[in-house]
């Protein structure tokens, strides 16, 4: 399994990660080696095996639909990089 420059650029875009141009060859090599490692899985026949998502196969717990949390907006926004009038600020998205 060998990933090239454009594969790494595509993956980095999907992950919304900026990667330094100079680091792309190393990422390509590392990721290719990791994919070689994980591809050892393909030698195992798993056609009849059910996937296991939770170790003890627990299912989602449900609760009564009632309000249990108080509004903590100010507390939680105290760690935000940029806030105005209780709203998170981001660069303009609509021209």
């Amino acid at each position, binding site marked *: 399994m060998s990933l090239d420059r454009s594969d790494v650029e595509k993956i980095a875009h999907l992950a919304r990660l*900026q990667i330094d141009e100079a680091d792309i060859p190393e990422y390509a090599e*590392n*990721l290719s080696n990791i*994919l070689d490692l994980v591809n050892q899985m393909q030698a*195992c026949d798993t056609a009849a095996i*059910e996937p296991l998502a*939770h170790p003890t196969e627990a299912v989602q*717990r449900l609760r009564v639909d009632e309000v249990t949390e108080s509004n903590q907006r100010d*507390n939680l926004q105290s760690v935000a990089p940029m806030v105005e009038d209780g709203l998170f600020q981001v660069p303009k998205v609509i021209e």
Partner: protein
Amino acid sequence: MFDKTLAELAKGLDTGEYSSVELTEAYLARINKEDGAFNSFITITDEQALNQAKAADERRATGDATAFTGLPIAHKDIFCTQGVRTSCGSKMLDNFISPYNATVIEKFNQAGAVSLGKTNMDEFAMGSSNESSFYGPVKNPWDTDRVPGGSSGGSAAAVAARLAPAATGTDTGGSIRQPAALCGITGIKPTYGRVSRFGMIAFASSLDQGGPMTRTAEDAAMMLNVMAGFDKHDSTSLQTDTPDFSADLNQPLKGLKIGLPKEYFPENLNPAIAARVQAAIKEYEALGAITKEVSLPNTSLAVPSYYIIAPAEASSNLSRFDGVRYGYRCQNPKDLEDLYKRSRGEGFGAEVKRRIMVGTYALSEGFYDAYYKKAQQIRRLIKQDFVNALEEVDVIMGPTTPEPAFRIGEKTSDPIDMYMEDIFTLSLNLAGLPGMSIPCGQVTAEDKSLPVGLQIIGNYFAEQKLLNVAHMFQQATDWHLSVPPSVVAESK
């Protein structure tokens, strides 16, 4: 004082030999003086610790104390701690003062424990050497040229260097057990779901589990008695009874059936490690245990399936770090996409980026069946191996790691080499089983003694059994009492 276990320190508090304030002041002074050599703490919380200690002494005076009231411990910097920086070892969260407490922190607060500070760790718990931390590598107290293991390397080094009597850790693929082995301390990863994950910054949610890192099994039981229990805030929290983990520590081991998986003693296992582990098993036979060879035939598939499941879950979990709501934000973003990409690109280190990209690739359109689904199918095979083996035996034993502590920088150039460090530990996370590492001997490398860990694996919910098996070994041997030579010298 610094050589006492939690249980011994609790007695000293009970008898009034010292107050919690005196104990806390002594540990804070020692951390501030000695930790420069180890870098095991990211944040030392002097002021909060002394306030907690004062409150603990007052609580003891009113007769309202728990077994833990006034005992100082350290917390891995992955547990959100209200009013304290919670960095997860990352530049991304270097400015993050948590607005709330993790359930684990809340439980220790309720018990009256004192938090000395937050310990160093691999960035977002991704690593086996503590070298991926934004705050620099942690040094192993047994040889400061070597790694302490990871990702809970700061917790392990702090306990080994007697900078804290105990610490919390988390284990996604071995991150409690491997550093415990490399630093010569005791660590237990409980059954998945035993300890709440609420406020424990997520790496791979179906694998992550918090647990104690201590000097003895007795102390680990004390810690787990505080940490464990159902939590409605964690959707995967176990809804089973929480036993008294200290209750069965002294059960005799006569007739205990120990399974030895042939896959955990491969031909290329370091012979000095194999010898120490075999000697420990002989000790168990002397205590009345019987051994039996078992097989975990899918062991070789554990690393490949883990390195799909863990990165896939990480890529999803770490998408929350977007530079908008909390954490690092890049300067002067030109648009929203630039804000996301540069905040994440500048905020995350190389190993975190690698794992996000592996996970993103595995979950991208067209690859789901070949990677994530395949890995989950293999996960069932690995679980079934353990279920089969544990029908024949009570516990499974083997080495925790294939090698003793390696040199800082030795494995950083090759991620795969680093991943193989967890070959004996990460199967348990895939299966969700509890596992422990206890010190079982030392090997010599370049004139330095390095600790060896014995891994003890039990059935689901069998933490009491593991702690009993570990405690009885520690009653019969003294490996857990060994102090790193440099630490002894510095204590004088």
